[in-house]
């Protein structure tokens, strides 16, 4: 912190602040992969950040292709090209640490976003706590079935950090309803098609017994919806919830078939970029994104915090139209 203050002071003394502002910053973003909707919204939000639009920041997005080694090599590329800061969304909590270390050795600040990395060298982290969303979605299902009856849990790939944390949240909510029985609990690997098959088979083996479906993401919750429909049952007889707030899920919320908890990719991306600019400019920066005004519970605090927790937003009939409008 002291170092930062000195750097800040010397920066203001040595340069006119306008001169710094004119110097273009090279910032790299390294998301783990761009094949799914969430990370696309995330990268699109980066491109729409005011500092990128004004040309103050030259942004390069690297597709990590779901491979820890690819991400590490992209870090080396950014280090050789002398990027001013890096925004990192690691595929793996442990494997990402080496990359962060390399950037830190080269004096490039790294800001984490969305997924965690086991390293204390991050300048800051902007993400959302998955245990909270796991709790919120399970609670939504349990409230709807009146804290009694039977539920099934469709899990993410076992061992992934989001699956572990969301399950922890699921179980916390379930502990509050001791009368609720978990009939089945299996992975569908975040996949809609796999969840559909799983749910079709469960509806067969537990006819008329399933009251609630806790899907650890929206894709799988939507797969369960399709299975219920194709079995000729009414989705209104089930309490179904997912997480993430993907566009298909927003539509389903509008139709009243599921509950979804929105993970704000835009806030995670733009928040991380504001912090990356701040650290690249050694503290001489005021955040430009409107997300700080949007979430008063997450104050920018002059960028001094190590961790920023973007709140989850339950998608409801009241806010769904506005959210769908933003996706266009």
């Amino acid at each position, binding site marked *: 912190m002291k170092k930062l203050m000195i750097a800040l002071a010397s920066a203001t003394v040595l340069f006119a602040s306008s001169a710094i502002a004119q110097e273009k910053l090279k910032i790299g973003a390294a998301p783990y992969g*761009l094949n799914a909707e969430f990370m696309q919204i995330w990268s699109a939000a980066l491109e729409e950040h005011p500092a990128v639009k004004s040309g103050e920041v030259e942004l390069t997005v690297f597709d990590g292709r779901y491979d820890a080694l690819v991400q590490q090599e992209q870090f080396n590329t950014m280090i050789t090209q002398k990027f001013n800061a890096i925004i990192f969304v690691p595929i793996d909590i442990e494997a990402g640490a080496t990359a962060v270390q390399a950037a830190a050795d080269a004096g490039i600040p790294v800001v984490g976003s969305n997924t965690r990395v086991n390293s204390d060298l991050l300048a800051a982290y902007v993400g959302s706590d998955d245990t909270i969303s796991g709790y919120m979605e399970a609670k939504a299902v349990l409230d709807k079935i009146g804290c009694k009856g039977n539920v099934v849990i469709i899990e993410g790939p076992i061992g992934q950090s989001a699956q572990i944390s969301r399950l922890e949240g699921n179980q916390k909510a379930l502990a509050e309803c001791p009368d609720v029985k978990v009939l089945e609990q299996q992975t569908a690997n975040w996949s809609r098609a796999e969840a559909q098959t*799983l749910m079709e088979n469960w509806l067969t083996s537990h006819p008329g017994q399933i009251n609630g479906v806790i899907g650890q993401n929206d894709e799988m919750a939507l797969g369960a919806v399709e299975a219920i429909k194709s079995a000729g049952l009414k989705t209104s007889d089930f309490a179904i919830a997912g997480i993430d707030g993907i566009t298909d899920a927003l539509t389903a919320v509008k139709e009243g078939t599921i509950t979804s908890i929105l993970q704000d990719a835009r806030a995670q991306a733009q928040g991380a970029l504001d912090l990356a600019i701040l650290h690249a400019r050694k503290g001489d920066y005021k955040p430009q994104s409107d997300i700080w005004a949007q979430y008063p519970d997450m104050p920018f605090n002059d960028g001094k915090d190590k961790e920023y927790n973007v709140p989850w937003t339950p998608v409801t009939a009241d806010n769904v139209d506005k959210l769908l409008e933003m996706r266009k």
Partner: protein
Amino acid sequence: MSSIENKSSSSWLNSDRRRLILQEYGIFLAFLLLVGILALSNEFFLTPGNISNVLLQTSINGVLAIGMTFVILTRGIDLSVGSVVALAGMVSASFVTSSATAGIAGAPYPMVVALAAGILVGVCCGALVGFIVSRFSVPAFVATLGMLSAARGATLIYGGGKPVPALSPDFRWIGTGNILGIPMPVILLAVVFAGSWWVLTRTRFGRYIYAVGGNPHAAKTSGLNVTRIRFLVYVISGALSGLAGMILSARTGSALPQAGIAYELDAIAAVVIGGTSLSGGVGRVTGTLIGALIIGVMNNGLDLMGIQSYYQQVLKGALIVGAVMLDQKRNQGG
């Protein structure tokens, strides 16, 4: 188990005849055995609703595996089917979506337009691969590996990486509708199976496929157009991948860019379990259908019993290797 039953019931036959029967019906007996075990261990397994579910869950892999059979019979392999599923599913969906942003101009079009587009995409991918394999003698493994990557990339480019939601009800009927209570995907699988069975067993083209796979040099010297036959099997596999892609997006109600990942593995597994030899020239589409059913029944049965899906993967692996071991033994014996 099946071999013992077979021996006792056909002891009046000589050993050659016995081996032939085992070869033809071994896989079928294994299937019946599996069904018997599952029926005894789960009360819901043989209910009409579940039988319909199993057939429904087998339909996509069944269609892909039948296409794969054509290719493998000529000593080839098609690793691109999963990616072609995603591409065809997405292109066809863009014709029938009512979403303002995801569709092409003028969507939604009638279902037949989307069907034609999806099949055409599959045919084009298959034709490109077939052309490369048959004209340039590029190994099928390499050519289709290239297509696996290229078609997935094309899917992401075409849809901007986003899903295509809100598909029209008439298109969704392909995946969710039924005729006389039989789900549409199952009917499509039956039609594909009947057509392929007819082509492979009753037409000259079918005999040529076996000839090319059995001994390409002999086929060539006896005047067969080996290049053309090799080309066409990839077109067939591509077209069926296109069809499977449309069934998938019609079932899930949305075309997803990450659809069909690793589907080629289940398709190859069904072919191999069904007794088609990877060295070409030997095998039948009936075996493939039963191979696909075995995979479908096993997944369904283990789900019904609440067994973790990881065990399903282990069992499937054992089944694939076991089937090939049996095949090798058969070949040595014969």
